[in-house]
């Protein structure tokens, strides 16, 4: 069985590595028709993983396992005519050149339960992408599939142009991973734990020690480095976990719930640490979270996850602008709030002004576009100094409520 496991030494592309399977015709169609993007072009040569064929199912280490009994993996025969199966090349045709993490129609089912449903995700080099969603929305499952630790039921995954199911070692050499609820060997010191990781990555002792010293400094654990890991606080463990993920000098960092169960001060510290590290190490980061504030300050783009589906994704302000034509502004002035009404309604674009249902001194201004600047000018001209101005919808919490209907802690099942 071990002989079959994926050999990372094989050239990742260019070499034909076809499965010994007679039904090549299924995948053979549009190979030459793909665009110039390297990911897409390279894919067919690596024997596309046709996920709907149970014979191609792979175990977590890339061991080919024939599982004819795994009916769940294959769509029912009657589905076939309805949903045309697309080849890997087709699925990856639109992938940009600098994409680091790509998933297309990625699906994971556990029995009847669909944990991840047809996920399309593209993360470009240097991006910080936040995967947002309530507990149980399928975030961790997605992360595990990106690392090749769980095999997808259907769909395509490419990390740095590689299929994690087939070449898990090559992927894991370049991807640093901070699992949710990260743990360390309690009997070993923090430094020894990192050394072990370095050894597993084949880093030489001297190089590893230098790297570990540097990282321990960066996560500010120099003083605790030689204490046993079992004495570490939650926040210290999380910081050690970040150092641990960086030991291998990764190009991609995947953080699963990095701030969970840390006190607010610790979160702030961790976030500024992450911000600095991402900048200094020039990393592509994907982090998952159900805590909103951190993503707001850290992420270039976010995706909202709900019940295994990505319901919205994009830069925060685009998401905020995207769904509602109307813009809501919270406005407060010195003086009677009602005095806003006449001034605001005179500003072009403003459609209506209503009192806030919770705060007496706040008026809500609805407008067809962002009128914050002209409104402020108008109020100042009317001698009404503003004490409060906030555009609703840019706040992540509201976006979250908008996109994830079941709420913050709502479980999908």
């Amino acid at each position, binding site marked *: 069985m071990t002989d079959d496991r994926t050999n990372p030494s094989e050239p990742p592309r260019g070499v034909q590595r076809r499965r010994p399977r007679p039904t090549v015709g299924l995948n053979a169609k549009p190979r030459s028709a793909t665009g110039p993007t390297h990911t897409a072009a390279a894919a067919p040569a690596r024997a596309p993983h046709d996920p709907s064929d149970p014979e191609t199912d792979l175990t977590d280490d890339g061991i080919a396992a024939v599982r004819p009994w795994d009916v769940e993996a294959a769509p029912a025969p009657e589905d076939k005519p309805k949903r045309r199966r697309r080849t890997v090349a087709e699925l990856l045709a639109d992938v940009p050149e600098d994409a680091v993490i790509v998933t297309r129609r990625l699906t994971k089912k556990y029995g009847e339960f669909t944990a991840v449903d047809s996920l399309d995700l593209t993360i470009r080099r240097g991006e910080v992408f936040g995967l947002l969603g309530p507990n149980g929305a399928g975030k961790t499952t997605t992360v595990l599939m990106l690392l090749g630790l769980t095999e997808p039921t259907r769909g395509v995954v490419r990390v740095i142009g590689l299929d994690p199911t087939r070449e898990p*070692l090559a992927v894991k050499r370049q991807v640093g991973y901070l699992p949710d609820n990260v743990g360390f060997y309690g009997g070993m010191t923090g430094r020894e734990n990192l050394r072990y990781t370095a*050894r*597993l990555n084949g880093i030489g002792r001297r190089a590893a020690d230098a790297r570990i010293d540097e990282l321990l400094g960066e996560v500010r654990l120099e003083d605790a480095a030689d204490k046993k890991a079992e004495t570490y606080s939650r926040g210290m463990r999380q910081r050690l976990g970040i150092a641990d993920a960086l030991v291998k000098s990764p190009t991609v960092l995947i953080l699963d719930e990095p701030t969970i169960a840390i006190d607010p001060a610790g979160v702030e510290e961790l976030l500024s640490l992450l911000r600095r590290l991402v900048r200094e190490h020039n990393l592509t980061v994907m982090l998952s979270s159900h805590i909103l504030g951190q993503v707001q300050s850290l992420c270039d783009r976010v995706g909202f996850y709900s019940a295994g589906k990505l319901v919205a994704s994009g830069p925060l302000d685009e998401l905020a602008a995207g769904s509602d034509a109307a813009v809501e502004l919270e406005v407060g002035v010195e003086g009677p709030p009602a005095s806003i009404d006449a001034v605001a309604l005179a500003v072009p674009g403003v459609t209506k002004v209503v009192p806030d249902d919770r705060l007496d001194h706040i008026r809500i201004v609805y407008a067809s576009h962002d009128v914050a600047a002209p409104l402020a000018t108008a109020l100042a001209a009317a001698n009404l100094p503003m004490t409060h101005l906030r555009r609703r919808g840019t706040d992540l919490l509201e976006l979250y409520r908008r996109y994830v209907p079941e709420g913050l802690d709502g479980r999908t099942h």
Partner: protein
Amino acid sequence: MAAPTETAETPARKTRTESRRSERAPSGGWRTIAAKELADHIASWRFLVLLIVIAGLSILPMYFSSNDIAGIASQTTGSNPLVFLALFTHGASSFNSIPMIALVVLLVPLVGIAFGFDGINSERSQGTLSRLLAQPVHRDDVINGKFVAGITVIVVMMITLILLVTSIGILRLGIIPTGEDMARVGVWLLTTVLYASFWLAFSLLLSVIIRSTATAALVGFGVWLAVSVVGSFLIKVAAGLLFPIDTTASVQAQIGSYSAQQFFLRLSPAQLYQDVIRATLDPSTTTLFVTSSGQNTSAQQQIPSLLTLDQSILLVWPQFVALVALTVLLFAVAYVLFLRQEVRA
């Protein structure tokens, strides 16, 4: 904590020389994992405690039987292999006639279980498993490394024990082992390690299946007790139920019942192991057909003759192969289950 770091360094050096090749060759991750596990084992309390318990329980019967052995030694001339091997096999009358090997038979499974029952499930509950598997190692490297580390620590323990017994034999009784004595003890060591590996594979299997380390340990020790203490008794009862005999039974029926009993007994790894050590440590064992309590009854009825080592090995070769097969089978089951398991709890 100096010890584990020291022990772990050797493979680290290996890894370094290989790091350049690591892009091409499959990962040697199991060696790194085995080195770390071994360092953990040797620094652990359970290693120390087990070593003390087993060493104490092995040396005590030998100490009490040394007078008897000295008597045997004075009667025999030349290099009689029985004298040295008696250190292991002789039960002193002042110690309820329990020989050292009987205690080893009882305790070896304990060692195997102790170094395996928390192999996988503790990594899971600690939250280190997903971190470990996110490193560039194959998933089977984890379980292979743990198995190798467990076997190594058992080898270390058994060699310590044998050296202890041998040195006490030399110092107290002046018995110098011959080449064949050493060879027989070597075979015994090999078999003991194999038997311990069987229990190690069993406990690793438990650690894959059972999520709680405490439950896995309890189940492991329960099975150990069942097999070691009441196992052969239960098998005899089962054979008696299947092939009942009474006083009026014909000779053929009695023989049939007896061979059924023998067959069931040989299903037990403990019985297989006892067969092997009886043959290898006692050259006067010429047949294993009688496996009931009397150790030398069959030999006594025959013209006393001693088998050479290869003849002794030939006698128990089937048992040896069966032990290997059982061990491989258990490990294979643990291996496959672990590879198929979800990383997440």
